[in-house]
């Protein structure tokens, strides 16, 4: 049984996974004397943020949307997918901002 809450749950799971990947990547990028690492961390953070949306939408579509046959339910699910994608992106950015401020001197601080 597929309902709209599945779209939100999946989006949040994808958001959490992407956030963890982003944090791991940030820590794997070594400090460099020319400071190029700072830009690399920023780029990876935003790329993974966009990927978070894309992957969330893709998985919701592939796993749930294709199994819905009723038109009215499809429209509801599409709306939920869009809202979930937006929420997961905002959640990702807010979580990144909070992590950057908590890890004041660490590598995550380079995100913001």
């Amino acid at each position: 049984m597929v309902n709209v809450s599945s779209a939100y749950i999946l989006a949040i799971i994808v958001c959490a996974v992407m956030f963890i990947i982003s944090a791991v990547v940030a820590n794997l990028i070594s400090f460099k004397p020319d400071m190029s690492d700072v830009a690399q961390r920023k780029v990876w953070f935003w790329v993974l943020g966009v990927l978070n949306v894309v992957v969330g939408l893709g998985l919701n579509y592939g796993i749930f949307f294709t199994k819905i046959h009723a038109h009215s339910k499809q429209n509801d699910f599409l709306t939920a997918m869009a809202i979930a994608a937006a929420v997961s992106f905002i959640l990702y950015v807010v979580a990144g901002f909070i992590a950057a401020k908590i890890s004041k001197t660490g590598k995550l601080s380079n995100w913001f």
Partner: protein
Amino acid sequence: MKDQLFVIAIGGTGMRCLESFVHLCAIGMFDNEEINILTLDTDQGNGNKARVENLIDLYRKVKSDDSQQVDGGDKNTNTFFSAKLNLYKFFTNYSNDNANTYQKLSNVSTASVEQREEDKELSDLFFQDDTVQTFNLEHGYRAQTHLGSMLMYHAILQAVRNATTNKDKAHDEEKALLSFLTLLVQAGQQARVFIFGSVFGGTGASSIPVIPRALADASKIMGGNQLSLENGAKFGSTLLTEYFTFASPDRSKLQKEGVIASADNFAINSQAALQFYQDDPTVKKCYKRLYLVGWPLKDEDFSEDNGQSPTGGAEQKNPCHVVELMCACAAYDFFTLSSDTIDNIKSAEYRYRCIETVNNVLKFKASDFVDRGEFFLNKLGAFFSLAHIILAKHQAAWIGTKNGGTKSLLDRFSTQNIKDYSTITDEQAGEIDEYMRMFAYSVSSKGDVIVPGWLCQVNNSVGSSEFLFAPSAFPHSAKDIQKIDPGAIFIDNSHNWENPLLSNRYDYFIKHTITDSNSRPKSEQNVKTTKERFLAHLFNGITIAQKFKI
């Protein structure tokens, strides 16, 4: 009460020993000390003298907050640049055409003809009249120590007399000598004085035997308190025998100059000097400790590329040698003797130390330089690593590199939200870079030729012998610099920084220095100026990474 420390560097070799001493101060060997330094030479424009004086000026700038008003910072503990240095510059002024030879100096205008004849006969008895009495003194005493001792004694007394009786007209160097002597007299029995100079050359060899006596007699001219030789300042010095050579002067140069120091005589000069220091009662009374320092391998050749050897002047800028570092370490030993030990020395003690040799290859260990070998190696290694970070990783070795060096290291701190050091200006950051270049190496602005700094020169001087660090820590070309790993300089791998699997040592260092609260400057380090705090932060970060058990 703690003794006050004084250093006197005399002649070209003395200046290079002082250079090593200043670098020992920079690595943090003289914690919580204020050291008054007197540079003393016959040759105002001597290249070695200029180099060490620039170095001390730079050292003071590095510690000061205001680059316009350099106060030399403060005394700190357990950090880089922990000692406060004060510099006094004195030279015997022989630039006047009427007073640039012994003959002219000894020509007393008020003397009668008869007195002059007697003076001449006496002079001729000791000094060859057509050479020793007539050579130009501007470039030193040219290994004529019998003449030099007398002239140096005379010059010191004359300078103090001028500065005392005629303050307004006195030259700057005379005032500087008077200021230094005043501090020495004020310190009295609490003064510990270490003298750097060679026993085989000219100016240093001439001065070491007479300096205590000259300073004591000069203090009498000042009036008031006087420096007592018997129960006053405690003197120590090195007896540094020959370790360098240079091409013998050709006939035309010899004819032109009259007298030129010949390296051929250095060995015999050293031998005679050692016999003198062994027996002379004044030396035994004046000095508490004399450190015998020599070099068993091939002498360093100081000849220029054209095979000529300058008699002195700005051209005389010889590279540093490991024996000079030994001399600086002798000063460390002397300055760290307990008061009880030094007070109980009634007649000069002679000290020496041997270096392990295997198949004619010397194997230097840190404990050969300083009793507390680990303590020394920790500090020297930390400073060398910092030099690599600034010069190699942040590219300050390339003179004129914009936005590199200490500035980019400060930018890193700022980016990682450590704003404590953001008031350090680009100019001040540049001063730290410049010090590091003088300490380790730089790359010539013409092409990619590496210019060895002090530590690389010292390492070069040992040839194929083993020095304190891994050979890979010393770059020989600009390409080598790019491959340097600041955290892998030690022979003993346990002191090299951790090398994480998916990262590198530089990353490890920055990560831990910035995030580890133990790296932050501590109150007991007594660091006050922003730069002192910044340097203490780096010192803490590096020493934690080196894991010495001290």
